[in-house]
C-alpha cells in the first residue's frame, strides 16, 4: 500500500515532466481507457471508410442518372437504348429501365397484349417489377448508413465512459497519495479527457455524414420514383397505342 502510494507520487512527479502529446496521453492511459480509445479509433476508421465510399457513390450515381436521363429523353428509340445497355446495367436507374423493358418484351413477345384485361395485367406487372427493383436498390444504397447513425449517437457516450473511468483512477491516485495537489490529478484527467475527445472526433463526422447522405439518398429515391412513374406512363401509352 505504501509502496503503491510512493509509486503514485513518483508517477505524479514524473507525469508533470511527461509529454502531453496525443501519443503520450494514449500510452499513459489505463488499459480500459486504452481499449475504449481503440474502439473509438476503429469506429472512426470504419465511419470514414463509409463516408468516402458513400460520397463517391452518390456523386457517381447523380452523374450517371443525369447522363441516363439525357439519353432517355433524347427522343431515340427505347428499344435501341435497351439494346445498348444490354444485360449489364451499372446504376439503379438503368436497372429500373432494364427490368421494365425486359418485362415488357417478355409480355409482348408472347402476344399477351391482344386482349384488354391482358394489357392491364402487363401494366401492373411492369410497375410492380420496377417498384421491387427500386426498393432493392434503395436498400442497397442505405447499407452502412445505420452504422454512421449508431456511431454518431453512441461514440460520445463511449468516450465519456473512458473519461469517467480515467477520472476515477485519478481520484484513486489522490486517495493513495493523500495529496490534493492538482499535479497528482491533472495528468490522469488529461488522458481521460482524451477519450472523450476521440469519441467526439468519431461522432461528429459520422453525424454530419449521416445527415448529408440520408438527404442525398432521399433525393435520389424521389428521382427514381419519378422515373418509375414516367416510364410506366410511357409504357402504358405504348400498350394502348399498339392496341389501336
Amino acid at each position, binding site marked *: 500500500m505504501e509502496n503503491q502510494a510512493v509509486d503514485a507520487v513518483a508517477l505524479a512527479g514524473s507525469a508533470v515532466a511527461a*509529454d*502531453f*502529446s*496525443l*501519443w*503520450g496521453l*494514449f500510452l499513459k492511459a489505463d488499459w480500459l481507457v486504452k481499449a475504449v480509445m481503440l474502439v473509438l*479509433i476503429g469506429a*472512426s*476508421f*470504419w*465511419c*470514414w*471508410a*463509409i*463516408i*468516402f*465510399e*458513400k460520397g*463517391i457513390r452518390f456523386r457517381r450515381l447523380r452523374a450517371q442518372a443525369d447522363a441516363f436521363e439525357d439519353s432517355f429523353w433524347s427522343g431515340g428509340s427505347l428499344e435501341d437504348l435497351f439494346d445498348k445497355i444490354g444485360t449489364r446495367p451499372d446504376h439503379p436507374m438503368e436497372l429500373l429501365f432494364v427490368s421494365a423493358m425486359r418485362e415488357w418484351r417478355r409480355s409482348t413477345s408472347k402476344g399477351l397484349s391482344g386482349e384488354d384485361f391482358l394489357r392491364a395485367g402487363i401494366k401492373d406487372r411492369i410497375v410492380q417489377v420496377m417498384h421491387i427493383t427500386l426498393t432493392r436498390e434503395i436498400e442497397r444504397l442505405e447499407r452502412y448508413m445505420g452504422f454512421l447513425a449508431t456511431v454518431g449517437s453512441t461514440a460520445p457516450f463511449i468516450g465519456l465512459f473512458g473519461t469517467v473511468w480515467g477520472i476515477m483512477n485519478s481520484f484513486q491516485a489522490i486517495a493513495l497519495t493523500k495529496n*490534493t*495537489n*492538482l499535479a497528482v490529478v491533472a495528468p490522469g484527467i488529461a488522458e481521460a479527457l482524451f477519450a472523450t475527445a476521440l469519441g467526439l472526433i468519431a461522432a461528429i463526422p459520422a453525424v454530419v455524414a449521416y445527415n448529408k447522405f440520408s438527404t442525398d439518398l432521399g433525393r435520389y429515391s424521389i428521382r427514381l420514383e419519378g422515373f418509375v412513374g414516367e416510364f410506366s406512363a410511357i409504357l402504358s401509352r405504348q400498350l394502348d397505342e399498339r392496341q389501336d
Partner: protein
Amino acid sequence: MRNGIAISTLLHFGVVLAAVYGLPDLLNPPVVVEQPIIVELVTIAERTVSQKPVEPQPKKPPPPAPKLKPIAAPEPKPEPAVAKAPPPPPPPPEPAKVEAPAPPKPAPKAKPAEVVTPKPKPAEKPKPKAQKKPAPPKKIAMAEPPKAFRSLPRPKQKPKRRRPKFSADRIAALLDKDERKHRAEQQTKATKKRTAAKPPPTSRPSPSRVRTQPMTMSEIDAIRYQIQQCWTIPAGARDARNLVVRIKVFLNPDGSLAKAPEIVGGKQNSDPFYRTAAESARRAVQKCAPLKNLPADKYARWRELTLTFNPRDMLGG
C-alpha cells in the same frame, strides 16, 4: 467499398502518425518554461522587539539601588510621569498617581514603584538615563542633575516656555513609542503562549538574562517562514483568506519535534475547511520537522511555540 477503406486507412494512418510525433506540439511553438529564481522573503511584523534595549535597563539600575530599581526600570513608567506630571503640582504624590495609571498591564510592578519612588532621589535619575536614549531625555538628566526629583515637575508645569529644549510633545511621542514597543513585546509573548505573569519575572530580574531573552519577531518569523515553506494551503477552501490557523509546537533543543503539534482554537470541528487547513498546517510542521537556525541560547523561549498561519501571507493578498 474498397476505395473508401483505402482512403480511410490512409487518413487514419496519417492522423496517428501526426499524433505519435506530437500533434499538438507541432502546431504550437514549444512553451518556454521560465526558470524561477528562488528568493527567500522573510516577512517581519510591523515592529520588532530588539534585544538590546531590554538588556541595558536591568544592567544600569543595579549600581544605584540594587533591588528597587530593576522593578522601577520598566520603560513606560517613568516617562508617563514626565508627560502626565503637569496636573499634580506636589512632588511626592505625583509618581504614585502617575505610575499607577500609566502601566495598566504590569500591575504588580507599578505598586512597588509607588512605594519606592517618592523619597529616594537617586532612584529616579537612573531611570531617565536608562530609558531615554534619544536626545531630549538626556537633556533633562544633564541639565538638572542637582534638582533631581523636583526638576521633573517643573518642566511640566512650564512646558510652553521651554519648548525649544524640551517639548512635552516629543516626550509624549517617545512615550507613545515605548508603549507600542511594550505592547508589541506583549503580543510576541502572547503568541509564544506564555502566561503574562511568567515572562516579566524571568526576563527582568533573573541573572541569566541571555538565556531567557525574548525571541525577536524576526526569529519567530524565520521559524514560521520555514514552516510555511512546507505548508500547502488546501486549494479551493471557501473564504481561504480567513483561515487563520494556530498551531502549538513543542520542540527539542535540536529543533526536532518533542511531540505532535496541537491545533489551538476552538472551531476546528465546526468548519471542514478550517479543519483541513489546520491539518495541513500541522502536517507542514511535521514535514519541516528539524527546524533550522534556532537560537540555541534561547531554547527556553522556543521550547513551546504557538505559530499563527495566515493564508493571506501566503496567497500574497
